[in-house]
């Protein structure tokens, strides 16, 4: 009797756990692209920490007829350049875009366990990331630039920052640049800053916040995307850009190599769509809308085949 009730309790608990996980229909499709098309939903990861690429919308209403599950976000709940690109890609695939919002470091780490299909999140193509991910044709480029406090008068060019304290977001290309290990396919990079004291931050914006405390209070400079710095200046932060951009990044969509189903057809189809969007001027229009300048032309001419992603 006593044993029985104990066993019963455990069975009930186990049952609840199983029920919580829910029965998942066994998928039929052969590859990721077929799975997305059959599902009618493209699950896209985006970290809404990087305006104006991706940011939250206040007071958004979920469309009543959405196919997104309750822990996914509909297109109405987010906005920004990446989100517009993602919506357009999904539209041309003929499916609904649904978004999930894990931290950026979880997205670039790869090994997504099929929680989402694709990242459309301004990810720079780097050899490191190519070990875990397949990249699409880039949809725009971002100039990376140093920012210093507005009161500073001693620095006139990026090379003056050698040996100084420089902030950046963890896991970003700016980190690799400061370490001197950044490689961008199709670009020769000059490491003009020698032996900086590197100060990692959760995201670039926290670094900018610390920089704005005062010249040299916590940081001497921050290395981040030019549009990010320009956005912070527009929001009233007392900082300024130092010299010309130090390198350009090619930003693309990416899929997980370790996905349960072959992701190559999906990334090839998305590359096709992005090329169409370059040619018909969609991307240029969106770039003008969000950045006030055309950041897309160089990305359209990028030679994706030169990466040799699928030669294994």
């Amino acid at each position, binding site marked *: 009797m006593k044993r029985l009730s*104990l066993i019963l309790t455990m069975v009930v608990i186990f049952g609840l756990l199983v029920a919580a996980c829910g029965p998942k229909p066994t998928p039929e499709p052969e590859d990721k692209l077929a799975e997305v098309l059959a599902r009618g939903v493209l699950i896209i990861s985006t970290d809404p920490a990087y305006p104006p690429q991706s940011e*939250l919308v206040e007071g958004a209403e979920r469309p009543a007829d959405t196919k997104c599950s309750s*822990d996914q976000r509909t297109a109405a709940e987010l906005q920004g350049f990446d989100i517009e690109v993602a919506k357009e890609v999904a539209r041309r695939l003929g499916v609904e875009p649904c978004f*999930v919002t894990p*931290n950026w470091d979880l997205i670039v*780490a790869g090994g997504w366990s099929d929680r989402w299909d694709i990242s459309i999140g301004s990810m720079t193509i780097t050899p490191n990331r190519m070990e875990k991910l397949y990249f699409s044709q880039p949809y725009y480029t971002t100039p990376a630039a140093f920012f210093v406090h507005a009161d500073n008068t001693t620095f006139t060019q990026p090379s003056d920052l050698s040996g100084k304290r420089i902030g950046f977001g963890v896991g970003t290309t700016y980190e690799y640049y400061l370490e001197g290990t950044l490689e961008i396919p199709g670009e020769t990079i000059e490491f003009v800053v020698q032996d900086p004291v590197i100060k990692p931050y959760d995201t670039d914006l926290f670094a900018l916040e610390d920089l704005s405390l005062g010249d040299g209070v916590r940081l001497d400079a921050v290395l981040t995307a030019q549009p990010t710095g320009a956005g912070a200046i527009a929001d009233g932060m007392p900082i300024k850009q130092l010299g010309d951009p130090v390198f350009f990044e090619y930003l693309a969509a990416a899929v997980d190599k370790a996905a349960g189903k072959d992701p190559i057809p999906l990334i090839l189809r998305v590359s096709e769509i992005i090329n169409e969007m370059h040619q018909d001027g969609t991307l240029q229009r969106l770039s003008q809308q969000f950045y006030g300048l055309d950041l897309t032309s160089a990305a359209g001419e990028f030679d994706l085949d030169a990466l040799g992603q699928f030669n294994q």
Partner: protein
Amino acid sequence: MATEERSLQEPVPTSDPDLAVGLALVRRARRQRIIETIKVGIVWIVLVALLTFGLLQLRFDPFYIFQHFGFVVEGVLTTIGVSLASISVASVLALFGALGRLSRNPIAQGVSGFYVSVIRGTPLLIQIYFIYLGLPQIGQQLIRMGYRDLGELFTLSEIQSGILALSLNYGAYMTEVFRAGLQSVGHGQREAAAALGMTRAQMLRRIILPQAIRVIIPAIGNQFIAMQKDSALVSVMGVWEITFRANRFARKDSKFIEMFLVAATLYWILTIISSWLQSRLERRMARAYER
């Protein structure tokens, strides 16, 4: 207590001088209590004023808070839901953990001791990453071995991963709480139960647990209050609870102080409500033992 209150509500003029003295004493004690409460209240008001003054020295825009706090408030239900689900599962884990620690069975003792040691010895954030990133890899191994349905169970959604991590973590800490509660029941109670011919399970269910629960419940309340704040860690997986909403919304206009103030205030309000519920529950639990 109950009878005293009733007699205070209807102060019948009584001829019994002893009762009159007693009532006067009760009234005086009550008046003193009220005065004390008022004094403490004044100290609180002064402290809140000082805190507000301190916060006003920060560079922030109160009007922005007023316009946008609603977005963060929408995360309150998620925070409460995750915390409630986790504390429930954690309580079950803690009960089994404590029984294991007190058991004479070497396997049960070893398992629960190991569980408490590993979980208490590692940070919650790392446990969250292990469950979110690591479990699906075990699942994929299982799928490769042919156990597809079982393997898919290992890929938990972000909310499920968060609840599992919080439950495992708090379950370990609460194991000690439950153990203390079970041990607080006098040995005589066990002997009496054994003398009546109860089995160990009967003894546990009818004699030990009902008495232990009185010690355990207030501690669970305390853990629940702590958990509401620790649930902020699940934001790393993109669960839209209070901290995620505050943090990510702040980036839109670089209004970090504003949004973090909103989040902090919400957590504080949740804590005040929980503490109040906890003290009510405690009083209720203590009722049977009042003289």
